[in-house]
């Protein structure tokens, strides 16, 4: 699934003697036309790629989680109306306009999926990994979430229910995982380092604090 089985790629001359794949050539042609026709500003293209490749990522969500762990009032605001609460920490924007945060409890574990495409809270978690966008996860998360979690190495107690959130509209979900045990001495920044990307999707749990904690 990770590579393109496309057969009907266009034929291009090799440009400048470089060896480009058919897909590179096809995209290059598209970009050339869109830029030359004035629909796309190359500076916007560069800014978009730079923003989403390097500036956004799960560290934003991790900051939100850590704050919720240490600040009960923030946690309340976050679970009540996540979008403005995240804005307090400067987290938000395209793909996170309408955030919903769902909190794990000993009774219920939350798992986020988008069966129909790839909806994901970009400004909170960055661009999604390939597996999140791929048929195995999208097909199975809603019908056999416990089996999926097991493949991620997460085995929940049978008494902990699993709640799957299928992102079928413009709401975007972040899971608020439970704070691991043994973190009493850690400050907010240290706690944030325990928050994995997967723990905010629901396919993982936060790291346990190291022996130095």
């Amino acid at each position, binding site marked *: 699934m990770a590579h393109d089985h496309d057969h009907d790629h266009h034929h*291009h001359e090799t440009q400048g003697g470089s060896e480009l794949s058919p897909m590179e050539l096809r995209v290059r042609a598209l970009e050339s036309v869109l830029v030359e026709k004035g629909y796309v500003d190359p500076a916007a293209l560069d800014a978009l790629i730079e923003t989403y490749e390097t500036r956004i990522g799960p560290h934003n969500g991790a900051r939100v989680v850590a704050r919720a762990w240490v600040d009960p009032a923030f946690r309340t605001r976050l679970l009540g109306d996540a979008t403005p609460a995240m804005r307090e920490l400067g987290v938000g924007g395209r793909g996170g306009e309408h955030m919903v945060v769902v909190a794990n409890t000993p009774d219920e574990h939350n798992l986020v999926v988008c069966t129909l495409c790839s909806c994901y809270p970009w400004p909170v978690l960055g661009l999604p990994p390939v597996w999140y966008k791929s048929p195995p996860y999208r097909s199975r998360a809603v019908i056999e979430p416990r089996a999926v979690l097991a493949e991620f190495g997460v085995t929940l107690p049978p*008494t902990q229910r699993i709640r799957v959130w299928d992102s079928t509209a413009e709401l975007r979900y972040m899971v608020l995982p439970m704070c691991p045990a043994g973190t009493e001495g850690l400050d907010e920044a240290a706690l944030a380092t325990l928050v994995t990307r997967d723990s905010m999707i629901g396919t993982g749990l936060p790291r346990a604090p190291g022996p130095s904690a």
Partner: protein
Amino acid sequence: MNGGQDLGGMHGFGPVAPEADEPRFHAAWEKRVFGLAMAMGYSGAWNLDASRSAREALPPGEYLTSSYYAIWLKALERQVQGHGLATPEELSSGIVSTPAAPVKRVLRGTEVAPLFARGFPSDRPVPDPARFSAGDRVRARNINPSGHTRLPRYVRGHVGTVETVHGGFVFPDTNAHLAGEAPQWLYTVRFSGHDLWGERAEPGHAVSVNAFESYLESIDPASVR
């Protein structure tokens, strides 16, 4: 549409396969496709729902054997051609041979940071009151539109419980076809795994979807349309 994108509950795709290093992009062209799709999405020629619709309109076999950004690329090419912004020959050659068509907006480099930090909210006022309230039992309607919809097949016909009334939002089923935002009330509806998948469902499993008001009907038989 009941297309290749509607994957919930399907079998046969094998295990989930996380990558060791999980690069955001796997080839230079993927970055360009991402950026081009985002930039063109701002042009006003179409909207996000239309782009999703274009992607899922790929023949199911092609959809399922194309990589993620290959799907984006093919849909973007179709949209560009379909809206008369470039010809197939231009996209094939990379050489412009027809005049540019007018577009509503061109995203400038300096606009990216402020616009994308603010985002593009899709909540809209809806004049009528919400038909359903938290706690209501509702049935996901058995609709099978050949056009875009965000009601996945696996919930259709099943009864769930309204958990949250979110307010009005742009209705993708019309907006995708440039037939208006026609905002509707949006709900979170929870279904039990047993109701969705039958007696062999994993125990203690529930699934929520976000459902627009017209996707739902009261289970009071007298009010079922």
